[in-house]
């Protein structure tokens, strides 16, 4: 059965750690990283990358457009 898998790239320096993406992810992929960026924000990162389906919910809601999303079909 074909599998759809996704992944995201977070522009960690632009991210302000608002956590809105974390709340909007349907597959519980995201969390705020323990590390902080140059401005001292805990940026978003994929805590459970395998769950990501590439639905882009996080990307479209991000107020600072920090997230780029990729998706691939695996046979």
């Amino acid at each position, binding site marked *: 059965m074909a599998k759809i*898998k996704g992944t995201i*790239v977070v522009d960690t320096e632009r991210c302000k750690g608002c956590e809105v993406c974390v709340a909007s992810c349907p597959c519980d992929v995201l969390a705020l990283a323990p590390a902080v960026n140059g401005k001292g924000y805990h940026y978003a990162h994929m805590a459970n990358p395998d769950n990501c389906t590439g639905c*882009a919910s996080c*990307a479209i*809601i991000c*107020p600072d457009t920090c997230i780029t999303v990729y998706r691939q079909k695996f046979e």
Partner: protein
Amino acid sequence: MAEYIVEKTKENLVYSKTPVLTDNVMHYCPGCSHGTIHKLIAEVIEEMGVQDKAIGVSPVGCSVFAYNYLNIDWVQAAHGRAAAVATAAHRLYPDKLVFTYQGDGDLAAIGTAESIHVCNRGESIAVFYINNAIYGMTGGQMAPTTLLGMKTATCPYGRDPQLHGYPYKVADFVCQLPGVCYVTRQSVHTPANVRKAKKAIRKAFENALAGKGLSFVEFVATCNSGWKMTPVQANKWMEENMLPAYPLGDIKNE
């Protein structure tokens, strides 16, 4: 379990920042709805291919700096006067896409006359009205749309109608004006709402270019620093308090 590695190739790209947005990092507080709304407007401008036709009018308020974030021509208006500025730009360039981007203080307090009359003239522009029930830039004062009982810097004991009057529902006013063809309330606090909001922006721009009259798109939005909440809490608080007062959905669609 087999390891699925998604290659970050062009073919696999699903979502990325639109080039209509500049590279400037937005000054908005973390989680502020402005950023999301800016992005949606930028994306629609890209998709409609009107970056060379769009003339935005930014207000005074947090979103005064919208002009730093969308790479189109912008006229920054005096507080409350965006609708007048847009009227002239539209009349003088009828084939361009003119829109205003205003907060609740700008549109519904000082700019009330301009806002009502641009609607009454039925200018074929889009008015984006960001209603977060507070004055953000000046530090959290009461707005015309502040809810009863809501605490702000200028109604610290909660908005009391005897002292401060009632929340002002602009959309319910302007929908009665014949010059207005589209009135809708949207929000950007969940992915589903973001998708709907984007469609509303698209509709407003299409109406404007088709000369159908004024499109009024209200975004019920959050101001987590003014409300003194985290962004996620603000989204939740908005759902429970703002949306009952400012119900989402199309109010007029001709």
